[in-house]
């Protein structure tokens, strides 16, 4: 084993000798620098390995053989080994990354860089306060030296501000240290801890100064303008070092010296960390400069880790995992993002679309963003989950809420940025210039993030390696992305089929899960078949589609709340990428993501309450939540309703579904929305009628109004796909209303709607999506007369809308029949009337849809149009088969569901007759209804055929506009402004008030951020004043 002291010896020696090397030996010195950094990494790495294996114990190194307080001592323990390894790894990778630049500037820059990394090592290892001061200063001076690697006026200004700020800070540190020494008689941290200097007033001031200064070194909001300037103006390659390595060292020092003051100091660190995390991310929402944005995010993340350090007494045994997961996550992701910034070389985040020129970098960017926000499978996901669980179960709910708020604020700008990168129009011809020495470090940190997520699994209750199996397949699909679409499509279908086969035993025997299994998995496979229609490579489609399905499968099969949440977030990520693939989807995918993230956080809080109450991660914990019962269930319900797009939370849906690609719309509409329904059903069953009385009543009303508004808005759409999208909102409103009744009939109706909506919405979106592609327009008034060109499509849409409108004989009517019985028995008459009214509006848009597309006049440009391809029609007709079966034999599906439900609700429907359903109100036989109506229909059709022999056939142009052509021909189309009268009468109901409401909220947030960030005036003196004021306020809060 090489002693840790050699880290210092090698770095100092090397830095010293590099000074003697002339300019001619630049190559030699650059390689020596890397070799030195590599050796430093090796030393700390071997200690880490030894500690990991348990083959060594904590080592103390004393200078000159004396014991403290007569000597300076360094410590190499497990924690120190981890931290120094992290610092040295990033130092080495950073050295590789900045290799060319360092060589350009010369030996002096290399010396300074090595000294910086060394100083961070000592800061971590030293147990002596004055030694700490010395190396903090050396680190500051080296940092100021590195800032001018970027030689421009801005970085010079930033460097001076940095020196001024750290000058004031270190002066205060010195005062604190000397007084600590005066009262404790030792400079050794452990000596000061045992001396309990904090008990006297004067001693407490000394401890206060030391802690406050170490906090200030971490750039707490808002006394951090100097730090932000450094992030913005320094070389991004160096920004990575500051954000990853310096912050790691700084956080560890804070953790190390906090015991000096005793228990009382921890809450203040929590407070400071929270203010920093929330404040910095909030202000970041207004930022347009990429590097400064990364600075805000860095400071925020460091604030989060600071909070966790302060929470150490509360978190107990979970502290190490949570703190390390969050720190490592920030360290890897932020280093990667800064390094990316160094390749992109664009100041404005809106110019980052050039990233799309390199797929590998794009994927890495996505990994870093999702890791920062805390999505699975990254370590921050595991860390945050455990953190929220622990906080809520120890009654620190407000801390949990603030942490989630801060995370959300971070999501606001990160997803804005991601959207810009993915969708903004590429305006440049220039290609990205990527050298290997810059590329490899980014790849290493990206892969490390994934690996770190994987190895987080055993630390979290409820997490299984099993969840990573589909992720492995997704990675594989990503690697073969260069193959043509049909090959990948076949592989995806095969993979999904096999995975369905594996997980089926997990849902077998649970009827509710089996139904959703069919919708998620079989439905998924059918929608994938539509993909055969697509030509070319379809880059990036399959990994994200499979990610969504993997998430859905995990939701369905997990037995723990953690697994459910893991799947939920995975599904959110996958569906986000699916949605944003649409041409004009950027703003819609953005709002989808924000609603989803907010919803997920509500669910997380709800789960945390359940965990607090039951003490287990098992899903059964959701039953009878004993703490904050109403709040917990409401949070969960609202969280799930962000996915079902209930009224108020629906504004993302029309755009997201309407602008999506033709086969994505059915995926996100027919299938994805059901995940929210599954969540709600699970929740309601665990909650029970008694506990949720009021909540259910309110949700019933919400469901009714959602149905009304969704359907009404659908009526006035000119865009075919948006019409279907609004119709989904309405249909999901029915489902919410039905299951909120909490009766057997209500739930039967709910299940019928779930199955029906899955079937007909998939058919309609598949077929209409195909037609939109064929005709090249979304607008209904530019279509028409396609009946003869596309007869199979016509039949499919016809069956779809008959089911949608709930007209006998198809299964839509089954839903209605059950529904009205349920409403009457429940006694929700007024809501029932609203829903009934909404149902009749559904007729209008169903008619508008089929009429505008298939009937009327064929448009000139559609004269050579062809029927849709079999790849579209086959899945649609398979689904039609499902509708016909469900319509003819509803009892085969509904009777088992009814039996299952009677375990939860009193039985009110009887299936004793052959296919005859009887309630106290009425009876109904799906089979007979189908036969009677089809027979009648055929008879009438035959009669009409018989008598139409005598009619004259009109040719298409057998009409005239009095020899004139109308000014705007499309305005004469029947679909244009259809139902104008209705609009005049009740159109106010769908005035975009809710959209305006959310817009106002977002404006308020942005205005607030704009107001706060004026603190950062740009003047170095003002920043020094901030530091003084910060210290004074901190003093009065903690000791005053």
């Amino acid at each position, binding site marked *: 084993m090489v002693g840790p002291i050699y880290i210092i010896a090698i770095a100092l020696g090397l830095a010293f000798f590099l000074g003697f090397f002339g300019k001619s030996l630049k190559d030699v010195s650059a390689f020596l620098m890397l070799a030195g950094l590599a050796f430093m990494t090796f030393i700390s790495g071997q200690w880490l390995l030894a500690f990991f294996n348990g083959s060594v114990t904590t080592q103390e190194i004393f200078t000159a053989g004396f014991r403290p307080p007569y000597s300076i001592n360094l410590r190499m323990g497990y924690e120190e080994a981890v931290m120094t390894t992290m610092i040295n790894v990033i130092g080495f990778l950073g050295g590789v990354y900045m290799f060319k630049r360092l060589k350009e500037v010369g030996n002096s820059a290399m010396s300074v860089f090595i000294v910086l990394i060394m100083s961070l090592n000592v800061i971590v290892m030293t147990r002596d306060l*004055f030694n700490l001061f*010395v190396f903090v*200063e*050396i680190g*500051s*001076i080296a940092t*100021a*030296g590195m800032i*001018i690697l970027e030689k421009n*006026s*801005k970085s*010079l*200004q*930033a*460097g*001076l501000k940095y*020196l*001024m700020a750290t*000058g*004031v800070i270190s*002066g205060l540190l*010195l*005062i604190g*240290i*000397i*007084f600590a*020494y*005066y009262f404790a008689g030792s*400079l050794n941290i452990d000596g000061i801890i045992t001396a309990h200097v904090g008990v006297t007033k004067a001693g407490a001031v000394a401890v206060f100064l030391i802690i406050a200064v170490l906090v200030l070194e971490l750039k707490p909001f808002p006394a951090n*303008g100097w730090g*932000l*300037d450094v992030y*913005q*103006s320094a070389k991004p390659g160096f920004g990575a070092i500051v954000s990853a390595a310096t912050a790691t060292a700084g956080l560890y020092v804070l953790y190390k010296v906090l015991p000096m003051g005793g228990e009382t100091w921890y809450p203040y660190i929590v407070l400071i960390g929270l203010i920093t995390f929330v404040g910095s991310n909030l202000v970041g929402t*207004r*930022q347009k400069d990429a590097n*400064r944005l990364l600075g805000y995010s860095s400071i925020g993340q460091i604030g989060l880790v600071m909070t966790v350090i302060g929470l150490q007494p509360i978190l107990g045994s979970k502290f190490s995992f949570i703190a390390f997961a969050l720190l490592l996550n920030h360290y890897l992701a932020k280093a990667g993002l800064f390094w990316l910034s160094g390749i992109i070389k664009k100041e404005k985040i809106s110019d980052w679309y050039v990233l799309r020129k390199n797929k590998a970098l794009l994927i890495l960017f996505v990994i870093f963003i999702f890791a920062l926000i805390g999505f699975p499978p990254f370590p921050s996901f595991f860390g945050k989950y455990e953190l929220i669980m622990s906080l809520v179960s120890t009654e620190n709910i407000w801390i949990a809420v603030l942490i989630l708020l801060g995370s959300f604020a971070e999501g606001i700008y990160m997803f804005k940025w991601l959207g810009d990168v993915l969708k903004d129009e590429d305006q440049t011809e220039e290609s990205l210039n990527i050298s290997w020495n810059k590329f490899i470090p980014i790849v290493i940190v990206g892969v490390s993030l994934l690996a770190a997520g994987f190895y987080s699994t055993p630390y979290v209750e409820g997490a299984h390696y099993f969840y990573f199996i589909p992720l492995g397949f997704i990675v594989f699909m990503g690697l073969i992305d260069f193959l043509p679409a049909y090959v990948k499509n076949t592989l995806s279908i095969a993979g999904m089929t096999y995975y369905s086969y594996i997980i089926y035993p997990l849902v077998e025997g649970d009827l509710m899960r089996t139904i959703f299994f069919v919708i998620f998995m079989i439905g998924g496979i059918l929608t994938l078949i539509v993909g055969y229609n697509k030509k070319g490579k379809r880059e990036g489609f399959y990994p994200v589609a499979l990610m969504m399905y993997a998430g859905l499968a995990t939701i369905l099969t997990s037995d723990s709340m953690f697994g459910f949440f893991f799947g939920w977030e995975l599904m959110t990520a996958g569906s986000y990428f699916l949605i944003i693939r649409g041409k004009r989807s950027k703003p819609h995918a953005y709002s989808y993501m924000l609603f989803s993230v907010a919803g997920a956080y509500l669910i997380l809080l709800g789960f945390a309450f359940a965990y607090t109450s039951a003490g287990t991660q098992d899903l059964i914990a959701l039953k009878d939540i004993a703490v904050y019962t109403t709040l917990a269930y409401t949070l969960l319900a609202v969280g799930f309703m962000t996915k079902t797009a209930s009224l108020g939370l629906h504004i993302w849906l029309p755009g997201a579904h309407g602008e999506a690609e033709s086969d994505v719309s059915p995926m996100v509409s027919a299938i994805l929305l059901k995940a929210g329904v599954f969540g709600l059903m699970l929740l309601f069953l665990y909650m029970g009628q008694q506990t949720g009385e009021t909540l259910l009543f309110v949700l019933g009303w919400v469901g009714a109004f959602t149905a009304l508004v969704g359907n009404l808005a659908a009526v006035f759409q000119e865009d075919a796909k948006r019409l279907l999208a609004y119709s989904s909102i309405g249909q999901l409103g029915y489902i919410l209303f039905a299951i909120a009744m909490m009766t057997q009939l209500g739930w039967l109706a709910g299940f019928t709607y779930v199955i029906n909506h899955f079937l007909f919405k998939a058919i309609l979106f598949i077929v209409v999506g195909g037609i939109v592609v064929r005709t090249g327009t979304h607008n209904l008034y530019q279509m028409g007369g396609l009946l003869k060109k596309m007869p199979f499509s016509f039949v499919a849409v016809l069956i779809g809308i008959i089911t949608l409108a709930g007209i006998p004989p198809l299964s839509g009517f089954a839903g209605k029949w059950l529904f009205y019985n349920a409403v009457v028995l429940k006694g929700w008459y007024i809501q029932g009337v609203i829903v009934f009214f909404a149902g009749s509006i559904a007729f209008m848009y169903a008619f508008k849809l089929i009429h505008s597309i298939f009937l009327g006049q064929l448009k000139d440009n559609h004269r050579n149009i062809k029927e849709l391809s079999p790849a579209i029609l086959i899945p649609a007709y398979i689904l039609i088969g499902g509708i016909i079966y469900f319509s003819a034999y509803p009892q085969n599906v509904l009777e088992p569901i009814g039996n299952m439900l009677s375990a939860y609700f009193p039985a009110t429907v009887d299936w004793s007759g052959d296919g005859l359903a009887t309630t106290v109100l009425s009876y109904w036989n799906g089979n007979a209804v189908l036969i009677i109506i089809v027979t009648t229909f055929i008879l009438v059709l035959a009669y009409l055929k018989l008598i139409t022999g005598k009619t004259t056939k009109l040719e298409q142009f057998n009409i005239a506009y009095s020899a004139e052509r109308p000014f705007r021909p499309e305005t004469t189309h029947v679909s244009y402004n259809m139902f104008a009268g209705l609009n005049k009468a009740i159109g106010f109901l769908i005035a975009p008030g809710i959209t305006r409401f959310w817009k106002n909220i977002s404006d308020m947030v942005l205005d607030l951020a704009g107001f706060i*960030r*004026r603190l*950062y*005036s*740009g*003047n*170095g*003196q003002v920043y*020094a*004043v901030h530091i*003084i004021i910060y210290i004074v306020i901190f003093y009065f809060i903690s000791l005053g």
Partner: protein
Amino acid sequence: MEYIIITIGFALTIFGLYGILSQKNMIKIIIGFSLFTTGINIVMVAIGFIRGGTAPILDEAGKEIGKYVDPLPQALVLTSIVIGLGVTALMLAYVMKLYQDKKSLNINDYKDLKW
């Protein structure tokens, strides 16, 4: 005696800080920093002082009195002075570069980075 020195030291620190925060000329700000660190150094030396003690050198004179002043703060001060020198030099270098860039020593002219 040592209290007077400590008071002077703190006064100097405060003066320095006031200069840092109030002067607009960057050279004067750096002078403020020098005062600031000098003040702190004086405080440090004063804290280690023992009335009637001698310099912490092991010689006959010290043995006679039997007590030395605390050597540690003096060692710290030496280190602190060296670090202060480095920081001051670096700051001056920065100011020189900035002056070459904009021909101004007024700190208010260097606010390109904000918000």
